[in-house]
């Protein structure tokens, strides 16, 4: 029903625009050049990009394996998406700080309360989002063709690289999904990497910190940047969908 869509879109737009009535728009725009805001924006884009690459590299072969059928692995791998993000973050925090193996990894990679922790938290939470579309895409390729190719000696990475061509549209959509989820990640990140200004301060964490300290102009500026980024990602995603159809 189109009228309902218009009403809901208008309400959401109203809520967004009303932010600019709380503080002067020029104060909000001025904040865009604030070092803290720029740090949060840069850190968000960098960590989300790394997480996206990491997730897609791991999700691609995993989804291929799962497409052959697995009743137990998929729910387990998808768990971080269904659990509260703070619970995922707490699990990772306890693992990396209180267990022998986790502490060993942490001593090498400095995950807890530092930037690598952001990447880990974003990756763990967004990984299931890539798994499902990629698995569905792999399922469209007939199992017998894959068996035939294996019988000719084509297997492993060589086979996967050839199959990539057939699922590249799903791969692109999944990448955007993972990137946008990583950008928006807060609960797991703040628990594992902490909310430390100019260190682990991504856009959502910066919103949280500035909301706590009452800097409303900065908060609104950060919200505006987040909304513009999300809008850009959605626009690219929609354009890809149009191109595919």
């Amino acid at each position, binding site marked *: 029903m189109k009228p309902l869509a218009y009403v809901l879109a208008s309400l959401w737009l109203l809520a967004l625009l009303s932010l600019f009535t709380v503080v002067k728009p020029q104060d909000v725009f001025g904040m865009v050049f604030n070092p803290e805001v720029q740090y949060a924006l840069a850190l968000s884009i960098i960590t989300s990009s790394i997480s996206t690459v990491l997730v897609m590299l791991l999700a691609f072969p995993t989804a291929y394996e799962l497409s052959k059928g697995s009743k137990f692995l998929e729910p387990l791998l998808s768990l971080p998406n269904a659990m509260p993000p703070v619970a995922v973050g707490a699990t990772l925090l306890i693992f990396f700080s209180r267990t022998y193996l986790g502490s060993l990894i942490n001593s090498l990679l400095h995950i807890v309360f530092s930037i690598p922790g952001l990447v880990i938290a974003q990756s763990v939470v967004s990984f299931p989002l890539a798994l499902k579309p990629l698995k569905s895409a792999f399922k469209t390729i007939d199992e017998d063709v894959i068996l035939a*190719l294996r019988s000719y000696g084509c297997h492993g990475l060589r086979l996967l690289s050839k199959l990539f061509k057939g699922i590249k549209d799903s791969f692109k959509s999944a990448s955007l999904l993972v990137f946008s989820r990583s950008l928006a990640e807060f609960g797991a990140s703040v628990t594992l990497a902490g909310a430390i200004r100019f260190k682990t301060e991504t856009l959502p964490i910066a919103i949280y910190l500035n909301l706590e300290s009452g800097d409303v102009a900065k908060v609104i500026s950060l919200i505006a940047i987040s909304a513009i980024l999300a809008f850009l990602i959605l626009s690219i995603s929609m354009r890809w969908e149009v191109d595919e159809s």
Partner: protein
Amino acid sequence: MRVKDFRYGYRSLEFGPLSFEVNGVLAVMGPNGAGKSSLLRALVGGIKAFGYIEVDGKVIHNGKKGLKPEKRPIAYVPQKDPAIPFLTVEENLMLASKEIDEDLLDELGIKKYLNVKVAKLSGGQRKRVGIAMALSSKKKVLLLDEPLSGIDPESRELVIDVILKRSKGKDIVWVTHFEDVLKFSNSVLRLQPVRSNLS
């Protein structure tokens, strides 16, 4: 290829046990649901199987364990989609062999489609691509699932001729519904649901 006490199938459905030897061309026939296509999948290592398979004196499956499909000296052409639809004929052929045998493609009538995506070909043309891939793969045994389905009646003998000419010294197992193919086969395995007999 020698197959002994071979059972195969899926969780709820099991076929066999079968024992047979392939010396030249073996035709596998039987009604739908007799396990013909599943037999080929099991021989190539795609589904669960128990028993013994030997090719050229080398055991490739014994008991529950067997070599992976890529390690077996067996090439398999499935019934439905024998090639990756979103790749061109040339790209598909390169997956089976490092070199493209243009004479073989010419004989099969698909040379002109080398740069065409498989998805754009007819069922019969796709089947020819699959056959070309299997023949190019230099494997000792060819498993062909309904190799003549989709191929027009006047071209069937030509395709059979190419398969037989190009696979000299190899064993062929083909699943078929066409009785007229029997004259090209050395032996016939007639499968019945659950039970089977070698004639």
